[in-house]
């Protein structure tokens, strides 16, 4: 600490940064030591509130993470002492606290805050398959990223009381049914890692696809999903799919600025201004993808990232390596059996071999019926028909798609295309 106290606004920024970086670490450590989820959240909250009061006056500490962890842990000791029945837990916490005051010997695997990183335990517990998916998502956002109950409720468009109930119920189940707070043994990892990745990807997509709701909180969801995936990829270095998912998210996020025009309308990949892509981020994504692929254990996220990487590498839409993308989609479809992937494959094939080839694949998909009611199915058919010059059929497909689309930008896009192909009535 040195010099004059910093300006309040500067401190607020520093605290906000520390919040993003340290919240999950602090709650994870406190849950590990006390077994009490609510206590951990309250003490983490208090520590950040104290920082906002103290740092403008005393200056920002040299190791903000360690300061916050100490304050949070002391708060926990204090509360447990008042509860008086938790002697053993208090002692464990006190031991951790004294160990940390010595500047000489940080724990192995510890960082700035001086404690081992327990976030991996917390991630696996929040994403335990015995909890409902929506509860896994809510708990992950609350305890690992510190998003408030109100913010999570807003992001997922449910009343705050519903979200609060969901969180309480999940914590009860963890306690009652004894869901263990640990990283699964190595043998169980292949079964559990996909579940964790699915939660993180769902959070990212909720933010990215903007199916509804307010923009700011949604961009925030994307950033938090990326940050958590980064933590996971670092803490599970032998899981290529974690790096694959991280690469996938970064490739997508790099295009964020170019996805929406000034009027808030969606811009398709084809029409995006590629100079507005974040090329530095694309390079970072490519690095993660290469590291993942080097393990030679392909998975759905690595393949999706590879597809996103093909798009990112193309200087223009025309110069995209569509045959390679179609090939990657074929592998992805084999791996996942997902009709949505099959739909994307049809798009890639249409680009590589012409819209008639795409239309043939689409017809097979439509007979299957798995995507009935999904607006992108008629929207894709409309696009193929338009490119084949079959305008009347295209128009009715656009109409069908617009009726199924849920958000404003998607519907506006479809109506605009409809106007292009519809014969003039005047």
């Amino acid at each position, binding site marked *: 600490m040195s010099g004059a106290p910093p300006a309040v606004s500067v401190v607020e920024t520093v605290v906000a940064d520390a919040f993003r970086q340290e919240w999950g670490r602090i709650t994870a450590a406190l849950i590990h030591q006390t077994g009490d989820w609510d206590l951990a959240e309250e003490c983490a909250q208090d520590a950040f509130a104290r920082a906002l009061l103290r740092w403008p006056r005393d200056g920002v500490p040299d190791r903000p993470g360690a300061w916050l962890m100490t304050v949070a842990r002391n708060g926990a000791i204090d509360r447990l002492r008042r509860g008086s029945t938790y002697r053993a837990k208090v002692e464990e916490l006190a031991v951790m606290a004294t160990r940390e005051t010595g500047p000489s010997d940080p724990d192995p695997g510890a960082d700035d805050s001086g404690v081992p990183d327990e976030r991996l335990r917390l991630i696996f517990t929040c994403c*335990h*398959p*015995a909890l409902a998916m929506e509860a896994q998502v809510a708990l992950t956002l609350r305890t690992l990223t510190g998003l408030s109950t109100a913010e999570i409720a807003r992001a997922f468009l449910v009343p705050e009381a519903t979200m609060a109930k969901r969180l309480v*119920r999940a914590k*009860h189940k963890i306690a009652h*049914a*004894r869901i263990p707070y640990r990283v699964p043994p190595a043998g169980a990892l292949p079964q559990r890692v996909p579940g964790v990745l699915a939660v993180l990807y769902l959070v990212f997509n909720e933010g990215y696809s903007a199916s509804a709701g307010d923009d700011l909180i949604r961009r925030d969801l994307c950033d938090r999903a990326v940050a958590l995936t980064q933590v996971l990829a670092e803490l599970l270095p032998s899981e290529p799919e974690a790096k694959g998912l991280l690469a996938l998210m970064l490739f997508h996020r790099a295009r964020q600025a170019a996805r929406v025009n000034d009027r808030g309308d969606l811009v398709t990949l084809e029409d995006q201004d590629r100079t507005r892509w974040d090329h530095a981020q694309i390079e970072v994504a490519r690095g993660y993808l290469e590291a993942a692929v080097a393990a030679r254990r392909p998975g759905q996220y690595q393949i999706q990232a590879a597809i996103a990487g093909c798009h990112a590498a193309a200087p223009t839409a025309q110069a995209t390596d569509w045959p390679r993308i179609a090939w990657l989609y074929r592998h992805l479809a084999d791996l996942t059996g997902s009709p949505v992937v099959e739909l994307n494959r049809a798009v890639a094939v249409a680009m590589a071999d012409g819209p008639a080839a795409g239309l043939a694949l689409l017809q097979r998909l439509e007979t299957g019926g798995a995507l009935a009611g999904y607006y992108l199915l008629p929207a894709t058919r409309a696009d193929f028909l338009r490119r084949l010059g079959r305008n009347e059929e295209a128009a009715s497909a656009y109409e069908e798609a617009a009726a199924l689309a849920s958000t404003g930008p998607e519907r506006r896009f479809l109506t605009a295309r409809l106007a292009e192909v519809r014969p003039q009535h005047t």
Partner: protein
Amino acid sequence: MQYMLIHTGAPDLDWAWDDEAWAALRSWLDETIGSGVSIEGGPLQLDADATTVKVRNGQLIITDGPYAETKEQIAGFDVIECASLEEAVQWAGRHPHSWMGAVEVRALVGGPPVVHLPEPGAGQTRYMMLVCTDPAVGPQEFAHIEPVGPWVAAMDRRGIRLFGSVLDPPGAARTVRVRDKHAIVTDGPFAETKEQIAGFDVLECADLDEAIEAAAKHPMARVGLLEVRPFRRLGED
């Protein structure tokens, strides 16, 4: 003959426990334990804390919640020893759950008799594992079920399985509901769901992962459903 009494109630059951219900439970336990009728039993956590496990195409599928959505939730059980189904039905009609919800009576078939259990070991959690049928599984698939003996032997050896039994088929069950002090006894189980309870095992495990692992190895995991529900510990909400 041993019978299982499955206690059920509305989801907001905890509010239904008034002084009268507590007094009735106390005298029911005094009488049945004193006379050696009640062998073992206890309250269970409600649906929100249940987990259902199945294995399909070699894939373990774990879901949050009970084996079936029912109006009356399972809230506890007793295993009693008495001479006939009629006598068991009478005991069921005097249990407070018969007016707070319903009590289903099912005879235990096969296996050694259930005995009274000591308190769980330190750090151990007890789970009721309900062995249930899955209407999505056809009779042909069901016919390929493996024998349960090796699973029982393995879980007994590991100290995970405390006791358990196959139950008389659902058609042979009786369900007792007392309304306005009149007992209404119906044939069949308490829930009119397509999924039905076929048997049960009481497990004692370090945590839910161990209980799920045990359930997943049960032969019925491939052709049925296994619900794992923790016992309710004293003083727990």
